């Protein structure tokens, strides 16, 4: 008899469920302001706002960078009332995972951060990224305002331009000038001089090289640079490509041997330290040298504004490769091929990654975008030097960990990590890397 009551109750539960479901979705919509109006309900909701929504996904959630990005975007929105840019962000490692997840779906952001090289090119193979070359060709002024060497990093071998740099970068050795002076040391240019400097510092009881490899990517920069000098460009190009990668060139093992020579000079317990921990100790004058990215200059300034330091190139090692390559690559944004507003996205990038914002960006947050001549606005000498290092580089060497197929990269980094702990020999490490590279060949072939 009173079953009705029960039914009512169940209905209520169902209603609650649907409310939860819709609020859940709604919260997603307000959160993301989805442009995917494929669902009729959201289309109805969106009729009041005729704005064009551009979803923007970046990987700089740290301050002050995040605030700078958001303030610039707000500025752009004020100037363009018809555009609504919806920003989301994630940290480096989560970003790598997240973007792969959304890029193939309808939820793909219109404009998103992507590393040059293999990281982006696998998306290009799936036709998920838009070609910007036609837009650049149509606007010569825009094209000329960008540094050609940096744009080249965002160009495929068959000429497609898929991204515009947001932040230029390069890897250099920084040294503590005061310590070097005290010890009567000068900048080392060759490997032998470098080792001599390390010995001298160690004798004086100073950690020669601040280096923390807990997160494993820092080792990739050492190995990547050494490989550039020890292995010829052609062989590297072949090996870094998943379908043809073998890593049998003796130069690769030689690179590991050179790296091995440095292990006694690294910070104690390298594999238990993170890069930012050791950078802090360098900033506080507890180490003689550190291999860092130029984008870290603002951090060092924060950690110790008084630090008196200088920079030099990775010491030259004789080999089949090219020692003039500057390790590092620009990082920038690409446009999704699925975007509904390609024109608007490009217009936005022209401004956001152009000289005007670039000059302000360099001065306020200490990062340079790919525009020509933006160092004029900069007052900091370290930053000026950094810009010139990058702008004068004839050739860039993309990040090693971003250029390799992910399983090969993973294997490389874990083996270098074991090598750092003295668990394996260089020959064993190379054998394992070669094995995984071979496996990757078959996997990559299946994918194509």
């Amino acid at each position, binding site marked *: 008899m009173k079953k009705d009551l029960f039914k009512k109750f169940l209905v209520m539960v169902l209603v609650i469920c649907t409310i939860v479901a819709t609020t859940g979705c709604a919260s997603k919509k307000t959160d993301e302001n989805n442009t995917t109006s494929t669902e009729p309900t959201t289309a109805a909701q969106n009729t009041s706002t005729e704005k064009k929504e551009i979803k923007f996904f970046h990987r700089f959630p740290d301050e002050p960078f995040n605030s700078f990005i958001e303030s610039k975007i707000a500025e752009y929105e004020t100037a363009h009332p018809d555009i609504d840019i919806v920003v*989301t962000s994630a940290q480096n490692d989560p970003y790598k995972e997240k973007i792969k997840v959304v890029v193939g779906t309808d939820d793909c952001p219109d404009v998103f951060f992507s590393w040059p090289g293999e990281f982006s090119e696998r998306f290009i193979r799936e036709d998920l990224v838009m070609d910007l070359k036609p837009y650049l060709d149509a606007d010569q002024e825009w094209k000329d305002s960008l540094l050609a060497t940096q744009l080249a990093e965002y160009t495929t071998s068959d000429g497609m331009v898929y991204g515009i740099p947001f932040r230029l970068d390069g890897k250099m050795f920084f040294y503590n000038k005061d310590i070097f002076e005290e010890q009567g040391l000068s900048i080392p240019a060759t490997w032998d001089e470098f080792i001599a400097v390390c010995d001298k510092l160690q004798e004086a009881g100073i950690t020669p090289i601040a280096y923390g490899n807990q997160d494993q990517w820092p080792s990739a920069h050492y190995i990547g640079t050494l490989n550039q000098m020890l292995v010829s460009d052609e062989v590297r190009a072949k090996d870094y490509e998943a379908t043809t990668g073998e890593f049998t060139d003796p130069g690769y093992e030689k690179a590991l041997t050179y790296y091995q020579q440095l292990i006694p000079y690294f910070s104690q317990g390298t594999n238990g330290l993170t890069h930012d921990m050791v950078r802090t100790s360098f900033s506080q004058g507890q180490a003689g040298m550190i291999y860092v990215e130029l984008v870290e200059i603002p*951090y060092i300034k924060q950690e110790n504004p008084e630090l008196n330091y200088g920079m030099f190139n990775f010491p030259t090692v004789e080999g089949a490769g090219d020692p003039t390559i500057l390790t590092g690559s620009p990082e920038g944004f690409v446009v999704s091929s699925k975007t509904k507003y390609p024109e608007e996205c490009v217009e936005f990038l022209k401004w956001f990654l152009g000289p005007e914002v670039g000059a302000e960006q360099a001065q306020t947050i200490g990062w340079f975008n790919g525009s020509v001549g933006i160092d004029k606005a900069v007052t900091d000498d370290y930053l000026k030097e950094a810009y010139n290092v990058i702008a004068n580089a004839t050739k860039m060497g993309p990040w090693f960990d971003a250029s390799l197929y992910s399983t090969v990269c993973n294997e490389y980094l874990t083996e270098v990590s074991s090598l750092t702990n003295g668990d394996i020999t260089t020959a064993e490490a190379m054998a394992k890397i070669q094995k995984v590279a071979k496996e990757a060949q078959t996997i990559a072939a299946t994918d194509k």
Partner: protein
Amino acid sequence: METKQKVTSKNLILKILIHLFLLSLVGFIFLPMLWLILNSLKTNNELFANSLALPEVWQFHNYVIAWSKGLFAYFKNSVIVSAIALSFILLFSSFFAYGLTRFKLKGSNLIFFVVLGGMALSEQVALVPLYKILQTLHLYNTYLALILPYIAFRIPFTAFLLRSYFISIPKELEEAAVIDGYNSLQIFTKIIVPISKPVLSSCAIVNLNFVWNEFLFANVFLESKSIMTIPIGLMSFKGDMKADYTVMLAGIAVASIPLIALFICMQKQFVRGLTAGAVKG
């Protein structure tokens, strides 16, 4: 006389030894936590200089920074997700256990076995397909992406527990109620639920502990910072190139307080409920 005295003095020594032992365990548990709180009140430079030293100035504003640096939002998200998930876990599980124990259902053994079997299935095994399913349903990166799997994965255990408790409730209570003209839902809300309060509160704490602290699903099914729950939010304090360590430590402390406080307030009911239902994990 003499022997008795010997026994008591022997007992006393034993007692002191046991207390010393148990207290040293307390120290062992508290040490990392005290270290955490100490260093969360320092500057980064002080932490790097000596993590055991007292700070020159107690940096209470580390907590303010942590809170404003996103912890507030993570907190809010955790509360929303936990509240909704927990309500439905308890509702569905108690309905389920009630339906199974109070009625003669065809195939009730099978139904029970199927749901119970869910206990043996781990989150990892479902991770990849769930993620694909949530994407297809357009639930990826919403609160529901967490709430639905949380409910589903906690029902088997909760229902199992409640079932064994409901079975022990004497039938006479209901028979009286039926005579009073109660329908099945009224029996549920007016008799079964009040009687089961201790076991329900234990279930609530155990499940809350799971939902509040869950990491794997939250890490995979959410993308936006704005809807992250605390466990993954904390990880984002670890910056890409730079981490504000002391602020991160403050964040860890704040994130851990609610459940600990709740447990301290409710520990009596919790343990009583555990005894009643013999909660197993």
